């Protein structure tokens, strides 16, 4: 590209930017800023890219439909490489340049880190990529919510499914040795006891640890009927399954939300057949009645969008809905009011993102559905109805 062309395009872009800001100024209602610490690079980039696309599209749809009660929603993202200090830096940068009322954070650790700051500033409602059960405490984390069930809830949904299929089954839990991975361990132990399951194997894998042969040997000893993976996107799940199959184990394998992307599961190859997991949203390809939002997504993007996309999309409309409730009530946009606005979300129709109407409970939306991978269709297909946890 010649320098001239670059210059031309740059001026064009600047002009466009000017027009946009001009247009925003023209409307007398104040913009609502949605800041985001988004892991566009680094180990969680797969999710970050999807989340980014989801939020972008969702913001566009909201603004095309007249914004939030006439207020335009502006999305300001910043890359974090999935590092806590970079996330904090991004938060500082965005909040120092804008008046931020809504925020998307990228990790459990970041959510916990920034929580005192949110309380102090009292302006912002935050959600994010973390479903950590620890955050599901409106007393301790009044300005954070989880766009779905917590990890403990997810494991609980899976265990209920197991208890229905095979009462008293032996269950294993394999999790990564991170804050994200450790979250549901204690909860899982309690749930297993409650449901009469024998949780006879809990393995933690070191981050970046690639060789899982000793862990697989432990699995061979314990011979669990089911193994639940938590804290991974893909690796080392295929290694576990592959080696278990080669040993002749007929264990069933399951995953929590972040292991549930259709394309990622597809990457496992043949061994993906029968892989189960819990997912709070519909997939991109789900054919459901009364799902105008899914139709809209499919018309905006003609290729498959990941589960992370759905997560980002859903997070945005939930935040927008909370803000809408605040404005409708004629209150000022700030942390406590936004929290009230969020709690006021009852039987909210997401346009098909979730299969059933959404009601916020505590800091979370405890709804999910069990899916199973069908190798012949190369798709995750539902194997349960929508489950609402109470």
């Amino acid at each position, binding site marked *: 590209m010649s320098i001239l062309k670059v210059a031309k395009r740059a001026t064009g872009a600047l002009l466009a930017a000017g027009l946009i800001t001009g247009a925003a100024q023209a409307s007398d209602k104040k913009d609502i800023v949605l800041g985001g610490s988004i892991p566009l690079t680094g180990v969680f980039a797969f999710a970050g*890219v999807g989340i980014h696309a989801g939020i972008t599209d969702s913001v566009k749809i909201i603004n095309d439909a007249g914004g939030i009660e006439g207020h335009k929603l502006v999305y300001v993202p910043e890359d974090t490489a999935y590092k*806590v200090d970079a996330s904090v830096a991004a938060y500082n940068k965005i909040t120092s340049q804008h008046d931020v009322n809504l925020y998307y954070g990228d990790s459990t650790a970041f959510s916990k880190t920034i929580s*005192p700051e949110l309380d102090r500033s009292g302006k912002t409602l935050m959600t994010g990529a973390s479903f950590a059960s620890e955050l599901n405490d409106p007393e301790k984390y009044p300005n954070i919510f989880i766009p779905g069930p917590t990890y403990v809830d997810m494991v609980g949904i899976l265990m209920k499914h197991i208890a229905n299929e095979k009462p008293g089954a032996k269950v294993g839990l394999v999790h990564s040795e991170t*804050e994200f991975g450790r979250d549901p361990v204690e909860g899982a132990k309690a749930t297993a006891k409650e449901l009469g399951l024998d949780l006879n194997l809990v393995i933690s894998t070191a981050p970046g640890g690639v060789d899982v042969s000793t862990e697989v040997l432990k699995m061979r000893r314990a011979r669990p009927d089911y193994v639940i993976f938590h804290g991974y996107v893909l690796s080392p799940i295929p290694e576990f399954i592959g080696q278990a199959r080669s040993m002749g184990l007929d264990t069933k394998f399951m995953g929590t939300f972040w292991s549930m992307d259709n394309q990622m599961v597809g990457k496992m190859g043949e061994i993906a057949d029968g892989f189960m997991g819990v997912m709070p949203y519909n997939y991109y390809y789900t054919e459901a009645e009364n799902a105008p939002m899914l139709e809209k997504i499919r018309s905006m993007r003609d290729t498959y969008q990941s589960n992370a996309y759905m997560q980002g999309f859903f997070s945005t409309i939930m935040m927008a809905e909370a803000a809408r409730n605040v404005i409708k009530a004629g209150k000022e946009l700030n942390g406590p009011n936004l929290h009230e606005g969020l709690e006021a979300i009852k039987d909210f129709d997401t346009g098909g993102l979730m299969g059933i109407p959404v009601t916020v409970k505590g800091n979370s939306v405890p709804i999910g559905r069990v899916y199973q991978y069908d190798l012949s269709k190369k798709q995750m297909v539902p194997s349960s109805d929508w489950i609402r946890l109470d």
Partner: protein
Amino acid sequence: MRIGTVKESYIADAALFDTKVQRGWMFALLAGLLLLPFFTGQYASYLVCLVLINIVSTAGLNILTGFTGLVSLGQAAFMGVGAYTVALMEIKLGTPFLLNLLVAGGLAAVIGIVVGLPSLRVKGLYLAIATIAASVILHFVFANWTSVTGGVSGLSMPPASLFGFEFIQPDQVYWIIMPITVIMLFGAANLFRTRIGRAFIAIRDRDISAEVLGIRLLRYKLLSFAISSFYAGVAGGLWAYFFRVVTPESFPLTMSIFFLAAIIVGGMGSILGSVLGAVFMTMVPEVLKMMVGVLSPIWPDAVAVMSPVRIIVFGGLIIIFLIFEPDGLAEIWRNIRRFFHLWPFKT
């Protein structure tokens, strides 16, 4: 043009700032530091604080590596020791922050001495690798001594406070970080006007010769480790007050490499080099980020290559400086200065 500097006494020769002009600039710089937060936004204050913290740690590493010739890849882990100490004292005891920082430095120094113990028997590469071992072991302790360090989730701590005033925002914490950085830098500069500092340099240049000259190797090597770790500990403490959350992942091995890169780029064996190196290495990612911001309207994927480019630039700077300017930015700075001093004559 400067004709020459006449020094009539040894004290004048050893002075930190040998001309009036230099002293004048120094005061201007200090005044600038005092006025800075009134002119910058939160984000700029944030960056300045980060730079200052890195300067303290880089200066510490330069004492060990640049002046004493002992390579360490444990600087980040020592910072971790300091950060955890500060966080624990603030949470459990609520003691004043100055005391916490001192204890943080002290504890880091003690651990530095322990890590430095093999330095009498092994040196060079073996020592560098021993310090990697130290950082792996410390990381393990941070991540697994859950009852004290909070395990992988780490510790969240209250902000520093003085007479009821809480230092929360970057432009507030600045008033803790900036004076301490200045004091520590002056301390480091003065160190090399004393016997201890000169002994360090002698050890760096040839440790066996230094021993022949009557310098007790073990004592001085350990002292160097202790001082360097003290700086790291204080820097870690400041880091903790700045971010108010300490996790094991906050101080990875790559951070130690960052400080090593900073002294290489800045200039080994130079206090000015520590400052320049820390400023430069901290600002490079920011400049890259700004470039991404400029580029993204034309090239929307710019942000996706940002992180790898940052890693490449980081490694590339180490390589380029080692090959082309082993004395770092400090040498470039001196050359520029010399040019103006001698102008219109050639150097």
